[in-house]
């Protein structure tokens, strides 16, 4: 192409605004369901995250290699915020913590971080200004709510919810949406029927944080456990059939996150 080449004007739909984006989430600790229903997030004003913190980072040199080196990183932790209209604080926080705020049994919502367990999976569906044409999505799996601060200025203000995640966020193509299926093991069943045919996400062997081509992850949560444990091997997918080499124990929840065509 010539150095004098001139491109056309950018397409109108490339100017993306948050007001045309649908934010929704899935509770990580949802009861068994295939699929788990998502919750649309009302009052959402903004969301953001930065590059991750890493627990370990090292430069690897070798003798005779001069300054050329490789950087290895382990223990990623992404963090960011979700911002809501202030008046939505009570309802949104209750939704995300999976409780109903009310006078009967949940009259308060503590604002401290209870533990480091994943609480919800966020799916930001970015659309054209017709609110109808999907441009693509941004997914932040396994968000962990942080300690919450509060301000209350004289004028309009936002409720800013800090979060972190130990699972990598990703962009997802247009025409695809998340599916979160949760099954209950009975000690003998080795095959589970997914609610949709999984899309091929990528070639897992090309990505060190991926374990399956068609699953973002599969976890098992024992009936006595506080959170699910990542299953890096042992599962396979054929069509809508998810199979494990040995049956999950009775009462164990099998949590599967993948994508399907819209």
């Amino acid at each position, binding site marked *: 192409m010539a150095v004098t*080449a001139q*491109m056309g004007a*950018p397409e109108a739909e490339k*100017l993306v*605004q948050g007001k045309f984006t649908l934010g929704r989430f899935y509770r990580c600790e949802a009861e068994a369901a295939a699929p788990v229903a998502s919750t649309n997030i009302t009052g959402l004003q903004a969301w953001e995250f930065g590059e991750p913190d890493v627990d370990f980072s090292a430069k690897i040199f070798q003798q005779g290699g001069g300054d050329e080196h490789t950087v290895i990183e382990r223990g990623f932790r992404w963090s960011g915020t979700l911002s809501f209209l202030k008046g939505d604080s009570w309802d949104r926080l209750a939704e995300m913590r999976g409780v109903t705020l009310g006078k009967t049994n949940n009259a308060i919502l503590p604002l401290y971080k209870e533990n480091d367990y994943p609480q919800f999976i966020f799916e930001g569906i970015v659309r054209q*200004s*017709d609110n109808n044409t999907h441009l693509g999505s941004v997914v932040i799996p396994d968000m962990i709510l942080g300690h919450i601060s509060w301000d209350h200025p004289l004028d309009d203000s936002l409720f800013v919810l800090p979060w972190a995640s130990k699972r990598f966020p990703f962009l997802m193509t247009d025409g695809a949406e998340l599916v979160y299926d949760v099954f209950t093991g009975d000690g003998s069943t080795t095959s589970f029927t997914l609610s949709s045919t999984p899309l091929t996400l990528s070639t897992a062997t090309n990505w060190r944080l991926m374990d399956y081509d068609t699953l973002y992850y599969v976890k098992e949560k024992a009936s006595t456990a506080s959170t699910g444990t990542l299953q890096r091997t042992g599962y396979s997918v054929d069509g809508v059939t998810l199979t494990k080499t040995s049956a999950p124990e009775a009462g164990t929840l099998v949590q599967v996150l993948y994508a399907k065509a819209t």
Partner: protein
Amino acid sequence: MGIRSTHLPYDIQDCLYALVGQYVSATSPWTNWQAIRGWPESDILSAESKNYIYILDAQQAGTFGHQGGKSRNIWEVVIGFWVTRDKGGADEMAIWVGQMFDKFQNPQEIHTKQFTVTLGTTTYTNTTLTAMGIAIRDIRGPSSEMGENLKEFRREMILTLIA
């Protein structure tokens, strides 16, 4: 994209005129009104039985671009309502303003509403704003315009769009 880069202000006006024309032909209470393209003179109003929605040509309000290429324009389009006292007056005006917000603040509705428009020698049948390359961003107003007669009222709303 159907609108022509050589005729943008008028093609945008034609598309919006055709879109509003679709509402006034079939959707209550829009059927009480009539759409015209451009600025109406008073003799037009007095000669017709319905109040008017008028759609003016688009005015450039800004641009956005990218490195190494042309820019795209942000446009503003005035859509006005002209009513006489004997055809509803201020009450009818309030209904129109409410309807404008209801339609143009509903992205799915306004971008999927089908209309037929002819631009130059090409007719686009059952097309949409999105298919024609028009993205509605905002609507504001109404502003009050001086009427030519004390028994007439005009209000104008401004659409912001990208095309």
